[in-house]
């Protein structure tokens, strides 16, 4: 090994570090450490002058190792590696000491913070001595993309990638794409009809030569890595041959059996063979085994009799399809919160208490009431209360704000005012109208005479105290603007239910090796600067699976995710981490322990040599095999045992 000549640079980060840590002292300490040739301090090491200082020293003092003590390596390691490389050193001959996030920011006591900073610097100096130059490798990127979820996010992303000329597999668990958006009546704040703006996109996605639609399908397994994923998809049996069916709909017409419509949230009915809604894409029905009398009792087959194309296939089985893709976009959306547990709001107890999504269907001209806003008995409501934050902003259910409720509540007010004579009360905690045109919409609705009562509703009851209240639902709570308890007798109550993570979000997260936040939504790589990437390279997220959001934000995210994928496709290759494991075949005893441990099947056993070998393209560098190897034959590049041992020694100065 060449004689190490180490340069140490301690950053002030303005006062972020220097305000707590005695930077001068740390520098003096570093100067005395073994092999340290130079130690300096600077206000902002990440700035150009800061980086130039390192570059100059590498040139003039012939440094061959560099340590920067500043923020988290997750933030600026790439910056400094690049600087070091520009000065002619291998970027891996660099080490960073995190004295901001894990020292100055978490420590109050200046003396203790300074001591800790010294220990972290000493560890980095000791470790960097052992660093070896490493080279990165490229692997090609498969230009096909998998998109999971056929809501507006999935559709948008699919179209963007497909329009750029690349193959997309769009997997949707339901029989049609469209997601929640196709269930909505109007969209705020422009009040354009949801179906009118979405169906053209659905049709394009359905007929696009580059998009392979896989509806009624679910992803079962994912393996591989960025650029080279292998995905197993289960296409559930529709009992209708997709090739033969021409979507004439006779089967649905002739089917004598009915079931509650999932699409209409049980407010309407569908047949046992059905498409969820008339504009379904693809326009190919499915048979619901649970309600089909042929499946239940072995006779009927009316659909089969009337299908001229012979498309009905009761023998159809689930099909497993294997896909190879370079990137994956997850756009699995959200579940609406079930308000039944909030007993006091009376959902499922009082028939005229509706959830927001139910109300969407009630408003919709294609919905169960033909767009008439009516009570269960068919009469028009004279007054409606819209209760905000049901399951949102509530420690008992979800802490977060669902972000869309204020706006759709305003939209409902407008629709109610437009279609009925009813008085509308908004029972809100805060009105959050943050988007473009949203505040203006709020003002517009105010002027339409909607009444706003600030305060979280305590109870919806049918217990009347006065004659006026008889036969009504009485919404009770405090009007916090008056400081008085208020009782509002109404005919209909709409609950603005929270948007919550899909019930299977945990399984999806595990399947794709991405993380969930405390709220259950998938976590982006960086909340501000990397909003659609995940911690797993090549896997992106868009739409409500990342957190509640409205349609404009969802579409923006979907386009962003598509752009990220397209940039990887156009680059054509990805750089593999150099920090992989290598097996010293001389030391390997051929016990194969590592073969079983490796989560990526990156280690294969070479029969004739009786040793194991790591496939560097598959190895993700976790180091699990290294720790487990009984012969100590495996080295984890950049996390070698010497390096870590040296670091341990360093922190314990």
């Amino acid at each position, binding site marked *: 090994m060449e004689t190490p000549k180490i340069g140490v640079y301690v950053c002030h980060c303005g006062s972020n570090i220097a305000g707590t840590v005695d930077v001068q002292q740390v520098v003096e300490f570093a100067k005395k450490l073994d092999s340290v040739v130079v130690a300096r301090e600077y206000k902002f090491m990440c700035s150009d002058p800061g980086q130039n200082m390192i570059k100059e020293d590498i040139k003039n003092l012939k440094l061959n190792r560099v340590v920067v003590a500043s923020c988290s390596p997750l933030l600026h390691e790439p910056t400094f590696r690049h600087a070091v490389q520009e000065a002619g050193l291998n970027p891996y001959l660099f080490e960073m000491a995190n004295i901001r996030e894990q020292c100055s920011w978490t420590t109050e006591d200046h003396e203790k913070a300074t001591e800790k900073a010294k220990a972290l610097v000493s560890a980095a100096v000791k470790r960097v001595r052992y660093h070896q130059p490493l080279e990165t490798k490229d692997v090609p990127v498969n230009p096909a993309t998998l998109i999971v979820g056929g809501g507006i996010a999935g559709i948008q992303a699919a179209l963007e990638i497909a329009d750029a000329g690349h193959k997309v597999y769009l997997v949707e668990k339901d029989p049609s794409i469209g997601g929640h958006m196709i269930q909505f009546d109007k969209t705020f704040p422009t009040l354009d009809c949801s179906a009118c703006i979405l169906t053209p996109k659905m049709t394009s996605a359905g007929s696009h030569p580059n998009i392979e639609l896989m509806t009624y399908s679910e992803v079962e397994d994912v393996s591989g890595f960025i650029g080279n994923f292998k995905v197993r998809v289960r296409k559930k049996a529709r009992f209708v041959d997709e090739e033969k069916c021409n979507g004439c709909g006779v089967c649905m017409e002739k089917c004598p059996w009915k079931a509650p419509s999932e699409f209409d949230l049980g407010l309407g009915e569908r047949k046992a063979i059905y498409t969820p809604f008339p504009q379904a894409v693809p326009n190919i029905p499915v048979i619901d085994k649970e309600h089909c009398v042929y499946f239940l009792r072995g006779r009927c087959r009316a659909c089969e009799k009337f299908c001229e194309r012979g498309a009905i296939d009761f023998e159809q089985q689930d099909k497993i399809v294997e896909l190879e893709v370079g990137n994956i976009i997850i756009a699995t959306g959200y579940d609406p919160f079930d308000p039944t547990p909030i007993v006091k709001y009376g959902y499922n107890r009082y028939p005229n208490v509706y959830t927001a999504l139910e109300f969407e269907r009630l408003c919709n001209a294609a919905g169960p009431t033909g767009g008439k806003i009516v009570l269960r008995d068919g009469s028009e409501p004279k007054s409606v209360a819209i209760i905000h934050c049901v399951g949102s902003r509530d420690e008992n259910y979800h802490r977060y704000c669902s972000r869309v409720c204020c706006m759709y509540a305003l939209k409902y007010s407008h629709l109610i005012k437009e279609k009925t004579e009813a008085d509308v009360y908004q029972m809100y905690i805060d*009105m959050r109208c943050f988007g473009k045109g949203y505040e203006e919409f709020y*003002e517009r609705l*105010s*002027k339409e*005479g909607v009444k706003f009562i600030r305060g979280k509703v305590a109870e919806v009851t049918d217990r009347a105290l006065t004659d*006026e209240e008889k036969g009504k639902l009485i919404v009770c709570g405090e009007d916090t603007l*008056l400081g008085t*308890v*208020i009782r509002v007798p109404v005919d209909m109550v709409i609950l603005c239910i929270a948007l919550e993570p899909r019930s299977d979000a945990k399984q999806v997260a595990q399947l794709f090796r991405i993380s969930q936040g405390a709220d259950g939504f998938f976590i982006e790589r960086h909340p501000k600067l990397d909003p659609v990437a995940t911690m797993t390279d090549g896997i992106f997220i868009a739409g409500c699976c990342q957190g509640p959001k409205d349609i404009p934000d969802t579409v923006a995210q979907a386009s962003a995710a598509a752009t990220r994928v397209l940039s990887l496709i156009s680059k054509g290759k990805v750089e593999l981490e150099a920090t992989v494991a290598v097996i010293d075949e001389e030391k390997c005893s051929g016990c194969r322990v590592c073969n079983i441990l490796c989560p990526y099947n990156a280690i294969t056993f070479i029969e004739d040599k009786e040793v194991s070998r790591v496939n560097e393209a598959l190895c993700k560098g976790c180091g699990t095999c290294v720790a487990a190897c009984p012969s100590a034959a495996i080295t984890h590049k950049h996390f070698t045992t010497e390096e870590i041992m040296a670091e341990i020694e360093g922190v314990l100065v």
Partner: protein
Amino acid sequence: MEIELLTPSKETTDIILEEGGDDLKSCFQCGLCTGVCPWNRVTTFSLRKLIHKAQLGVVDFEDDEVWRCVACNACVERCPRDVQMPLLMRAIRRVIMEVGAGIVPHSLRISEKNISAVGNPLGEPAEKRMDWAKDLGVKTFTKGTEMLYFPCCYQAYDPPTRKAAIATVNILKKIKADFGIPDNSVVCCGESIRKAGAESLYRKLAETNIKIFNDLGVKKILVTSPHCYHTFKDEYPEFGGNYEVIHLSQYLDQLIRGGKLKFTKPLVKKVTYHDSCCLGRYQRIYDEHRQVLTSIPGIEFEEMRDNREYSLCCGGCAGRLWMETKKGERFSELRLEQVAEVGAEILAVSCPYCMANFNDAVLTTGKSETIEIKDLSELVSEAL
């Protein structure tokens, strides 16, 4: 004890809306109005809450609070939702005055009756309306006279306030203006009683005056009250009265600019000026007074803390002049502190209500020795 439970009343809200309270719908309860309302310099009064009660139809029409607002427009000046508070308050008061809910304060009821009976709130005989001008040699307006000078009821009857009318006539005579005054058949302009909610009375007053003006072929009206100015200019057209209305301050400013008014006597005094709400925030007339005052030789002019669009109301608009305001809660008294703060010897005003209120306030606060209240017309007249 009975627990007070509030239930919104759509009917009540609808009545307020019908009476012109449409702006209540715009209010999003930010509370800025309460924050800027001058009442909260002297007591507690939540305008915001009152609006919310109107939104829900739960206004207590028997509570004093519905009579508080002086229509000074300080809140309108800054309201983020452009709620026209005076219109909203007027609607609430109409529900009381016109529809019959709630209680009308006694003093307001008397003024209303006076206006109704004799055409002025002071209850003075109608036939003495123009007595103030008896010895001034002013002609009564006849067809073909260029300009009608219309003094306010206070300037006609109230001796201290009357000085402004007399001074105005002096000035007009000096420049040989072709003008006349109305005869005794005219009545109160009605501006304030309208804001107090007496809509049908107002309409009667307006119709009476408009008929007289139109019959006489009046084209141009000079006024010395911002209230007459506001209603003649902005409200009479709705009832068929379309005139060129000019306030004395504007008129004087024009004269001075045109070199038609020459000052001969210097007035060596420190003067400050009180913007009336009705000329200021309502009409955005701010510069004219200041130009007139500063062109009078000898005057040292200084602004008070609250000036122009942030001026503090004297407390007299919207019928408040006629209602009793407790000592300690009078804005005029606060305003005099501001006058004292800048060390002005003269507080110039250009509104009879301001004049009346400040004349009271100098007495009640013991400042009559140090501060003199003068109408702009008086100062100009003295310097000629």
